[in-house]
């Protein structure tokens, strides 16, 4: 009946998460050695993340697809690739924080900050692997709770507290709706396993449909999909920039991976789920369009990037909606999953770059207003040029990674049939709309002269190196050397529950097995 529990082997496969938990505990304990030392906890976090990164790389190669802990977690190349991106990204976020605002953080707060950051990373890492509704809930909460605190980490500012509170209230509401949905799903299916839920979805009962919808609300919150996006701009504006960077990429990336896994489980059944495909597709289309239209009106760069991140989440949601089409083969799934991985990869670099530039400029000039970017090209030509690269990649300029990301998403959408063509049209139109606001910083920096004698922004070698790394990564993915679209497609393999595979491949076999089991019982 129950899959055998090989705890040691399973633990090996979740090594990245285990390492992060150890590092998290270590980070909170080191102050007992020396309370004023900020280097020690930082080193602990960096070493922990580095080790987790290596572990993620190793687990990818070792056993590329396994279900561990009674099918609670799926460890496959899809989840592990995301974890590699996540660890790398979190590592870069820690760097960003060290370089731009660690000195503004009180020494006593440093371990707390790192502990929360690592805790959220554990949660997000689990989200990518969650294969059971219970695990989805636990992982989402593990990612959310530290995020709420991180968003309000500027304790002494009113905006920080406000944004944190908003985030908590919204998050709590979304979680409770989601849990309620899961309880309905459990009532209808009698199992929390994703594959079992998908299997039961073949003859969708009203209760199951309502349950799934309520559950998706929880996903939508993490993805900041419209209409559950209201927290996003406020939180992103008020939170410290490194937290904003972290949330904008990692939290959304993890949620989109979770959504992909859910939909893929539906997609491989023979039944088709037009309502699910249409529903998720429309959710994505509305999110992208709303995000872009709202971004048009922003004058604060962080708010603008917040709405831009909503739009990008919308693109990804539109792309994965195709995964729920019935009867997809492995190749088709790899196209969708690969597109998601590639998009997250590219999005990591462009958002990290854009937010870092915004942070260093805000730090020097004290302003996040686009008006204050006037004449930046003559004050700080290098920084301005780098921001141009990031903005154009976010827009999707050919030759930069963002463009190929959109192409891959478009290729994924095509799998969704005629609805997919409509989604492609939405994607293309949105790209056109987004041009206007992505080019505005460029316009201010290059075409508007600086009349108020704003100061030049100088950046240290470490930040320069990080920004150049991001820009080079975007150019490299953009000209496809190395061919990352191919790599991500290869990694886009998802493992599905064993019970489920039995059920679909041959119903006869299952029956026989069940019969045997019956015999065995005394």
């Amino acid at each position: 009946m129950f899959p055998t529990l090989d705890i040691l082997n399973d633990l090996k496969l979740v090594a990245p998460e285990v390492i992060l938990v150890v590092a998290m505990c270590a980070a909170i304990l080191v102050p007992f050695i020396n309370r004023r030392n900020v280097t020690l906890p930082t080193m602990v976090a960096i070493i922990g993340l580095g080790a987790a990164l290596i572990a993620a790389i190793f687990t990818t190669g070792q056993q590329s697809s396994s279900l561990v802990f009674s099918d609670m977690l799926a460890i496959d190349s899809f989840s592990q690739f995301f974890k590699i991106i996540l660890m790398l990204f979190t590592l870069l976020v820690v760097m960003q924080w060290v370089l731009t605002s660690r000195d503004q953080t009180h020494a006593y707060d440093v371990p707390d900050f790192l502990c929360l950051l690592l805790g959220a990373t554990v949660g997000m890492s689990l989200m990518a692997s969650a294969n059971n509704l219970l695990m989805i809930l636990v992982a989402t909460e593990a990612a959310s709770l530290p995020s709420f605190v991180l968003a309000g980490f500027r304790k002494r500012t009113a905006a920080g507290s406000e944004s944190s509170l908003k985030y908590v209230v919204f998050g709590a509401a979304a979680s409770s709706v989601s849990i309620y949905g899961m309880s309905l799903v459990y009532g209808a299916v009698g199992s929390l396993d994703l594959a079992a839920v998908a299997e039961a979805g073949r003859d969708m009962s009203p209760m199951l449909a309502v349950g799934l919808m309520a559950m998706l609300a929880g996903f939508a919150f993490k993805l900041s999909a419209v209409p559950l996006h209201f927290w996003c701009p406020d939180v992103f504006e008020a939170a410290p920039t490194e937290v904003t960077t972290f949330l904008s990429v990692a939290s959304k990336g993890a949620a989109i991976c979770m959504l992909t896994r859910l939909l893929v489980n539906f997609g491989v059944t023979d039944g088709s789920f037009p309502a699910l495909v249409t529903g998720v597709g429309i959710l994505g289309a509305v999110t992208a369009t709303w995000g872009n239209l709202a971004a048009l009106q922003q004058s604060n760069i962080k708010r603008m990037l917040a709405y831009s991140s909503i739009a990008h989440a919308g693109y990804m949601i539109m792309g994965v909606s195709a995964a729920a089409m019935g009867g997809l083969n492995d190749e088709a799934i790899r196209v969708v999953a690969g597109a998601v991985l590639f998009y997250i990869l590219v999005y990591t670099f462009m958002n990290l770059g854009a937010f870092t530039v915004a942070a260093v400029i805000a730090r020097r000039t004290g302003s996040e207003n686009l008006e204050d970017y006037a004449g930046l090209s003559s004050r700080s030509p290098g920084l301005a040029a780098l921001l141009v690269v990031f903005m154009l990649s976010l827009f999707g300029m050919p030759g930069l990674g963002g463009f190929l990301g959109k192409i891959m998403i478009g290729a994924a959408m095509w799998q969704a049939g005629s609805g997919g063509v409509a989604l492609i049209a939405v994607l293309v139109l949105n790209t056109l709309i987004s041009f206007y606001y992505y080019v505005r910083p460029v316009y201010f920096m290059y075409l508007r002269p600086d009349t108020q004698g704003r100061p030049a922004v100088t950046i240290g070698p470490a930040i320069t190196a990080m920004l150049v790394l991001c820009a080079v990564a975007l150019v490299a993915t953009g000209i496809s050397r190395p061919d990352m679209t191919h790599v991500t497609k290869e990694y886009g393999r998802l493992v599905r529950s064993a019970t489920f595979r039995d059920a679909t491949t041959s119903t006869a076999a299952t029956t026989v097995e069940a019969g045997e089991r019956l015999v065995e019982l005394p």
Partner: protein
Amino acid sequence: MTTMLNLMIFLPLIAGIAVLAMPSREQAKWLTLGTSIVVLIMSLIITAGYISDGASGLAYYNEVTWIQAINVKYATGVDGLSLPLVVLTTALSVLIVLASWNVEKATKAFLALYLFLMTAMLGVFLAMDLFLFYVFFEVSLLPMYFLIGIWGGPRKEYAAIKFFIYTLAGSICLLIVMLGLFFLTPQHTGGEPLWHMIELQNLPIFAEGGAYYGWAKVFFWLTLIAFAVKIPAAPLHTWLPDAHVEAPTPISMILAGVLLKMGGYALMRITYPFFPDAAQAFWHIVAALGVFGIIYGALCAMAQSDWKKLVAYSSVSHMGYVTLGIAVLTTAGFYGAYFQMIAHGITSAMMFFMVGVVYERAHHREINRLGGMWLKWPGYGGWSLVCFFAGMGLPGMCGFIGEIMVLLGTFEAAGAGQVGANAAPTVYTLGILASSGVVLTAGYILWMFQRVYMGQPRPDYDHYEPVNAREYAIMTVLGIACFVFGIMPKLVFNLTEGTFDHLLNVIWPVGQVATAALGG
């Protein structure tokens, strides 16, 4: 040769980065000039090789797998359609670097952007993979945006963003078509999507009666819009006068001389060969757009008091011949349209340069505040006469060949029957209207010439610096080219002949009329 081809595309890019690192302006200028001369020489070597190899179609083709997941290759090569435009680009580039010698504001950035633009332009003409073409096509917008937006005139921001948004909207149409091809061509190949621009010609699935003829019609219109913006065909031309008026002289030259040609080139490379049956179905609408452009552009030009705007509208009018020549689907029309692009590349670049020479000294372009330029600088006046008359289409000069062949091709369409059996009345109407454009052209050019060049020089000319040797060199080269191509159009036709025979066979599979008389 293939190495040289690819080096030619990327040498300007490398030089552009090097220019930014140069310690002084002077060195940066010389490096840019050197690079453009080297690129010109390379393009001439490739042309010589193309001729001596006796190549007629696609030559020096090479490909490398680029994006495996969607079967995109980095593929470049030359054929008769691209080669003359490549030489036009590289030759104009040298002259334009010379014309930018006096740029004072952020010279290094200007030259670097110009070199990046050069890479994009050459890439557009040499790419043989549709995806690669798109990348270069889109990337070419970016340097142009900055070149207009930073070094332009008083309303530069407006003009730059308008230019960008118009062309971007066009490229998005092309992107939709590319996605469509990505999804539909596997039906033809039975697996991988197809991006090779020669193999994509006239696929059976897009032919009349094919599985996706309906899509072919949609794609035809989308690509047409994408490239009509660039040509520009009226009514999608409104970005052009703004962009030209605000752009600095050298940028106007490259914009009119090469960037507009990308539109015509892409029509001949993509829109028509990919979807010939759809093109035949809608020929009269496209032809009418061309005729409308000719007349509307000429009438607008006549109404301008801003000299540069007049020249800008003359571009709209002249490029209307290109649209018309392609739309009528006749041999003469195609040859004429292609020649018109080369001729317009020479004359319009020269016209903008002539305007620039005066503007640099007078700091205004009001036609009514000028006059007597001939007596002031007789040499300059003489070359201006050559340039504007060549633009007007005086026999013996390059503008004539293109216009007359397009008009002949238009009337030929009535007999050839490719555009429908009952097309004769439509064809004659369009032909007569287009011919009247020639008269209008003569009207606005002669009237402008009279106001700017005739009469006595004004007293405020006294402090103007004389036209210097560098400027005379530029106008001499372009002026001689006006004559050379007017007298020996075979220089172009010899290169294009083989490719055009193949192309016309694709677009027009039956009833092919011998092209010997035209091509030489």
